[in-house]
């Protein structure tokens, strides 16, 4: 087991059917790209790391196995950020954590980085453009500073300018020392962001692909 506080996400023999058990690790400030055709298990791998599905295998963060903490505490640290974010309130505001020390500053910076005006927080979500909702969801996933970010096609369906803003924000998160995993098929984006790649092929991929 790695030492505590080492800033490492370690995946140990995680079994996503029909793939062989996957083992790899990603260090602080690094980005692992997960590639593979549709249906190869990219989303399921990210969900399994976030402990949203029941899957055999272990995941460690800073040397601590996830079962050492509760499921919801784990997901505060290890954030699955899907482009298919579903809102549960009329406006975005209630979905964000309440005003704390510096919370509104952080939110303002994040919204500005994503070219969103502050007032979109309080406009009815169903009157916003899809791209606005998607960027708000992206902001929501980042706002409470998770240690690990698991992005599932973060810029899916966005036009190139907005996709570039998302990419910039992800780059900033990597530089700020987060552990980042991105699933998708944007090879150019991966070339710019990722330090390592994990290829999930539909037939039989290489055993225990290693990154970092």
């Amino acid at each position, binding site marked *: 087991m790695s030492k505590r506080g080492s800033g490492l996400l370690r995946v140990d023999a995680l079994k996503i059917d029909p793939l062989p058990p996957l083992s790899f690790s990603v260090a602080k400030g690094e980005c692992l790209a997960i590639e593979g055709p549709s249906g190869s298990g990219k989303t399921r791998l990210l969900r399994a790391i976030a402990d949203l599905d029941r899957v055999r295998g272990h995941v460690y963060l800073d040397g601590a196995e996830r079962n050492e903490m509760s*499921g919801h505490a784990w997901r505060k640290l290890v954030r699955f950020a899907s482009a298919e974010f579903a809102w549960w309130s009329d406006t975005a505001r209630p979905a964000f954590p309440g005003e704390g020390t510096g919370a509104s500053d952080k939110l303002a910076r994040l919204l500005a980085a994503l070219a969103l005006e502050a007032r979109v927080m309080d406009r009815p979500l169903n009157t916003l453009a899809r791209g606005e909702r998607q960027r708000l969801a992206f902001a929501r996933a980042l706002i409470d500073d998770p240690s690990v970010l698991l992005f599932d096609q973060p810029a899916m369906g966005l036009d190139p300018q907005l996709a570039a803003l998302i990419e910039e924000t992800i780059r900033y998160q990597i530089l700020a020392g987060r552990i980042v995993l991105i699933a998708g098929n944007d090879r150019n984006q991966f070339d710019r962001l990722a330090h390592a790649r994990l290829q999930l092929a539909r037939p039989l991929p290489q055993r225990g692909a290693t990154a970092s």
Partner: protein
Amino acid sequence: MSYVPLSLSDMIIAALLVIANGALSVALSLRFEWKLAIAIARMIVQLLLVSLLLRYVFAQTGIGWSLLVLSVMGAAAIAEGALRPERRFATLLLRVTSGSAAFAAGLLATLVALALVQPAVWYAPRYLVPLLGLIGGTAIAASALVIDAITHAAARERAQIETRLALGATRFAAFESVLLRAIGLGLLPLFVILSTAGIFNVPGMLAGQVLAGIDPVEAAKYQILLMLLIAGASATAAVAAGYVSVYLLTDDRDRLRLDRLTPQTKSRAKKLALPAWLSRRLRSLLRR
């Protein structure tokens, strides 16, 4: 005291309205005719059988008889509460667990009723059975509605629930809006019964007692006592059924566990309607 005995022809006239409703269902393709027919037939058989049984059981005063009746009613109640939902729990254990909250609440309120009414032999079936039937019945109905609403919403609003879980919500926080709506829905019939009591809805027991020749004010006092206990038991049953359902639909890692529900069956609505050939023929008959 005098009451009017009912004849078979009275019953048949009363049934005409139900039959008319069945015809309406066929005509408008509302697909509830079969469900209604089965439910009515079941109700008649149940009440007749129970009345024959009760004639015997009410003559007894032993506690053993009460316990027997209690366990039979309990089993039926739990089965009813847990089987009604269309997207239901996959195993018997889950069904019994989700349905038992209502029975517990109903039983508790019934014991309170017995303590207040203070019949000579409090545990005699004569008092226990009708009280449990009235109080427990409403509690079971409330709980069945809540379980139904939650199992449906869990599948339909999976994206919303899992988004909240992914953001680090506990299982009960992730189900917050689902739970709120389901409990509200489960309590709706209770609020309708309470707010309309005596205005255009004369409660069954009050009507029965007045028809049987008891002073309306005395009958109303009994009804109020029972209504209070029914309200308490139903509200408790709805809340408990809600939390138990969420607990059963999630696991100790705060994961949504839709695998604990049976798969969605599309044929169910069809199964409850008349066979296609029969409803076609009936519809063409009605159009003529």
